[in-house]
């Protein structure tokens, strides 16, 4: 199975909706956001393709791409022929809704929770979409590129200890 064969099959099925790249020789397919499940299902079900293992699922934030700021990346693996590929979908950061892949890959459950945790992607239909690594009461998505490097509003740093002046928090309420 070559990149060209996968590309041919996908184009035959989905037509002009998909765009392709092969950075460093690995095929990347970009699909419309509402087509993500259909593309994954097609890659899963088609006998000659057989991408039945989800290696990784994550997101990337491109703050400059208007209306397509958040890109959700699926890394797929055909374990029979040892072929890998990527599927990407892009959503606007104001309404980051994509369909969950948990019905297809049960392993996507925690990966989607992680992606939600760090990027705020809303996986529609996920059975249990809540934070997985960060503290539950966190009210922001830390890996979005929308924060200055040194956030001047942060109050949980003890600036005194870093030689920057400031005051040491003495009570739990100071930390908040």
């Amino acid at each position, binding site marked *: 199975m070559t990149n060209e064969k996968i590309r041919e099959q996908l184009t035959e099925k989905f037509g002009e909706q998909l765009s392709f790249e092969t950075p460093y020789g690995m095929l990347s397919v970009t699909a419309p956001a509402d087509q993500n499940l259909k593309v994954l299902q097609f890659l899963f079900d088609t006998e000659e393709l057989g991408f039945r293992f989800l290696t990784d699922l994550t997101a990337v934030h491109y703050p400059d791409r208007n209306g397509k700021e958040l890109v959700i990346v699926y890394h797929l693996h055909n374990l029979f022929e040892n072929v890998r590929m990527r599927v990407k979908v892009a959503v606007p950061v104001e309404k980051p809704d994509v369909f969950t892949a948990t019905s297809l890959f049960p392993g996507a459950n925690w990966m989607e929770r992680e992606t939600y945790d760090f990027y705020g992607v809303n996986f529609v239909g996920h059975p249990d979409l809540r934070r997985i690594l960060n503290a539950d009461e966190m009210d922001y998505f830390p890996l979005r590129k929308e924060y200055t490097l040194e956030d001047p509003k942060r109050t949980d*740093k003890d600036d005194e*200890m870093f030689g920057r002046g400031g005051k040491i928090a003495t009570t739990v309420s100071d930390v908040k």
Partner: protein
Amino acid sequence: MPRPVQYNTNEKVKFVDLPQGYAGEGFYATSFDKVVGLARKNSLWPLPFATSCCGIEFMATMGSNYDLARFGSERMGFTPRQCDMLLVAGTISKKLGPILRQVYVQMAEPRWVVAIGACASSGGIFDSYSVLQGIDQVIPVDVYVPGCPPRPEGIIDGILKLQELVGNESLRRRTSDQYKSLMESYGIQ
């Protein structure tokens, strides 16, 4: 001629000095808090709360080379209810903060806390959104051991410093208003 004793002559064993007091034939009188302090400081039960590399250094401290048991901390208790010295070794994330606090609350008074290493003391290199900038943000700390990670000698030094605190602690300290207000500032009853 009696056989000479060659072993266990106690030449190298260091004994704890007697506290100040009055000795006479068959009695020794000293103040109660000195005796209690002596007993407490030489039998601190450590509770390790190790999350990273400082924990490895602490394991070396407990091992035969450095042998913390020499200072009366023979047995680690892996339950907060039996221990009186909480050793926090490693990075504490904000999510772990409430758990550490719960472990501290479960310990019986009197209890002492040692923050081992830069992360436990101040957050260390992790000046980050997810890391607690020092465990003294959630629980009171008695001794800070600097280093990233500190050597076992450093940890032993910290524990000896703590022993000094424990030995000289007033028996009334834990019921004092100052101590109560300290606990209240951390929201601990």
